[in-house]
């Protein structure tokens, strides 16, 4: 009895201590934010699961704690870029924080659009939150640092583009037997491109024979959006061994003759394979960006595919939006022989490590209040639930959180894959002309999708056009 009483007493003590810690923490935020209480900070981002969590949950929490209002605009990917760049370029100060996608950070740094957060926090010691620590971020944060190691954006999402497949189909005994009878080897998640193609053909035929809306693969092949170029250059290309978009920055060229690789054999092989998957993709493939690919897979319309990891969690667990919950398998994307080994040795990568951060533009009129906000979202305490909803992890410690361990089991080990195999992936190449050159490549990829150009013609013309644009931009030969 006495022992029991002691335990109850200890628990009560722990609870009280915890409460006092929380309130002390809350008091610090209120005190630090007091000069800015009642002000409004504005931000813009792409409408993604992690961003929506920020808008719906974290912004309200921060306002309650500090009295600082957060107006957070989640919009389309194109609009997000246009709005942020126009604001920063014109120095209008509409936005106090902007989403910095990993691939655009080099362009923003080259134009000196962003506040050095490390320096700014050091200069404003009174605003430094005790719970915020730059070293707690995963190595993904390195993409947002300059040569001196100073941070220019607080990472808010980081994920890889993985291979998803429908376990209910791949583990169905009848389907497995039918596949083996037709192809002479067991049905399994693809590990080679030949296997991927066989799976795609088989499930497309299976869907047709069973009068089901089922196709063999996803293809992010929008002919009216850069998403198709991104899937080719950042997912398919690297898995064949085509790196950095085939652009040799030192040589200032994309053409093989000048040291580039965009029109090389590997690139042509990669594009040919990807285009050969179109007949086995759902009819919406040529209108699909990353969002539609995720929706198609969630609707059960594809047996396998390349899907951005930020969607993995909701596809696997959210029954209100997904028809394949509990049946989602996650694997590394298919690669050509030698590509994984090269990535392990640091000589390449197998796919795209995507993500972004929030940074403060120099044009912001509320830098101090925004610094508090960015530290708030960068605290370890808010990470786990955010990671569970948005399938993104930016803190090393989040991988060990019990909530993530529980979610990991539901998403077929996606988080474990992110932690253990994440280093095999890489962000976009460090081009200060990212969007400019990608816009040049888009029409050629889109015409190849439509069959107006062969893969070799498309890439040859794209490489030439890229070289012309690089020359115009002052980065060419």
């Amino acid at each position, binding site marked *: 009895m006495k022992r029991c009483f002691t335990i109850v007493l200890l628990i009560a003590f722990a609870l009280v201590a915890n409460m006092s810690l929380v309130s002390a923490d809350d008091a610090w935020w209120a005190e630090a934010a007091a000069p800015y209480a009642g002000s409004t900070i504005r931000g813009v981002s792409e409408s993604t699961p992690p961003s929506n969590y920020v808008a719906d949950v974290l912004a309200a929490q921060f306002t309650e704690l500090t009295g600082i209002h957060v107006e957070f605009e989640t919009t389309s990917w*194109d609009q997000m*870029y*246009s709005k942020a*760049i126009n604001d920063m*370029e014109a120095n209008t100060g509409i936005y106090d924080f902007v989403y910095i996608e990993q691939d655009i950070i080099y*362009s923003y740094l*080259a*134009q000196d659009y962003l506040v050095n957060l490390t320096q700014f926090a050091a200069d404003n010691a009174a605003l430094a939150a005790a719970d915020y620590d730059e070293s707690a971020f995963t190595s993904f944060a390195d993409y947002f640092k300059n040569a001196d190691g100073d941070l220019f954006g607080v990472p808010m999402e980081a994920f890889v583009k993985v291979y998803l497949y429908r376990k209910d189909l791949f583990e169905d005994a009848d389907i497995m037997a039918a596949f083996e009878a037709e192809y002479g080897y067991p049905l399994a998640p693809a590990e080679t491109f030949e296997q991927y193609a066989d799976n795609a053909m088989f499930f497309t035929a299976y869907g047709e024979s069973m009068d089901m*809306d089922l196709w063999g693969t996803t293809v992010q*092949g*929008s*002919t*009216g*959006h*850069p998403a198709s170029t991104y899937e080719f250059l950042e997912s398919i290309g690297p898995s064949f061994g085509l790196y950095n978009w085939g652009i040799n920055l030192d040589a200032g060229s994309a053409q093989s003759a000048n040291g580039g690789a965009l029109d090389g054999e590997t690139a042509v092989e990669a594009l040919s394979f990807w285009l050969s998957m179109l007949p086995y993709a*759902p*009819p*919406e*493939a*040529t*209108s*699909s960006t990353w969002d539609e690919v995720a929706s*198609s897979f969630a609707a059960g*319309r594809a047996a396998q595919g390349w899907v951005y990891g930020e969607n993995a969690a909701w596809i696997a667990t959210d029954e209100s939006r997904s028809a394949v919950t509990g049946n989602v398998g996650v694997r590394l994307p298919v690669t050509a022989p030698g590509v994984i080994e090269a990535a392990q040795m640091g000589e390449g990568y197998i796919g795209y490590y995507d993500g972004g951060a929030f940074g403060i533009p120099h044009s912001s009129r509320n830098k101090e209040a925004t610094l508090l906000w960015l530290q708030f979202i960068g605290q370890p305490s808010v990470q786990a639930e955010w990671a569970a909803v948005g399938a993104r992890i930016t803190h090393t410690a989040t991988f060990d959180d019990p909530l993530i361990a529980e979610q990991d089991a539901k998403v077929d080990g996606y988080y474990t894959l992110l932690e253990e195999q994440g280093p095999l992936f890489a962000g976009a190449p460090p081009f*200060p*002309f990212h*969007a*400019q050159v*990608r*816009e*040049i490549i888009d*029409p050629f990829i*889109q*015409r190849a999708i*439509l069959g*107006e150009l062969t893969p070799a013609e498309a890439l040859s013309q794209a490489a030439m056009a890229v070289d012309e644009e690089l020359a*115009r*931009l*002052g*980065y060419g030969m």
Partner: protein
Amino acid sequence: MRNPRVGWALLSPTLVILLIFGFAPFLYVLFVGFNQWNVFSAADGLVFNGLDNFRRLVFDDDFLHSVGLTARFAIFAIGSEVVLGFVLAQMLTRDFPGRSLFRIIHTFPLMVAPIAVGAIWRLLVIPGFGPVPFFLDRWLDLTYQIGTYPDQALMTSVLMDIWHWTPFVTLTMLAGLSSIPREPVEQAKVDGANRLQVFWYVTLPFLRPVLLTTIFIRIMDAIRTVDEVWMLAGGGPGTRFTGIYIWRVVFPRTDYGYGSSISLITLYLTIVLCWLLFIAISGRRKGEVE
């Protein structure tokens, strides 16, 4: 006699606003059009490059393709709208049961914002999910994919534009028809003219000013179409019209100099086209005076 100074005084606020928000930006675009200016280039700021931007666009296949597409879009859409609008306007001049209700319903598309029109049509035609491709496939065994077939994308844009803007043409035609005096029409009938002759020799000449104004407005709208089509197909094949091409050059590519030069040429083409149409429809010749 009225004092013209009063007139100018009353006009001056409008003129000032037009100068500030219309003419000044035009001068700025004119200035930028003669410079190389990409904020993400290695060079800082604007670099004067004379006529280089204009020379470049003459050899720019994407731009020329966009002009061709825009012309096809404008011809199909405006031609259909004028014919349909006239027929509907004629119909609305007569009495029939439910005329008022029809008039209200028929005007609804005009009240919808272009971006919403684009969204509605996208939901209707998106392959895999939209009802239009579904039923075309099921009933007529037709494959309808605007992302795969450029001609289908173009025709869908045309249909969308017709749906959105025919009511506008109908209303202007209706106003024109209502203002035609009865006497010449009745006189022509008394003189033995058939319906086609009445239309050709009496109605059409009276409608000419309205027709001209309507076509001008629709041409200018069609050439600068962006939002509806952007929402529908993202400016993919078959829908990469000049407006969308300019948007792509100016925003994602941030090539402000080149984008300005394309804008100027597009404006020039619009003015020339409208002038040619004015001459063709109004029947004016060189040296003629009103």
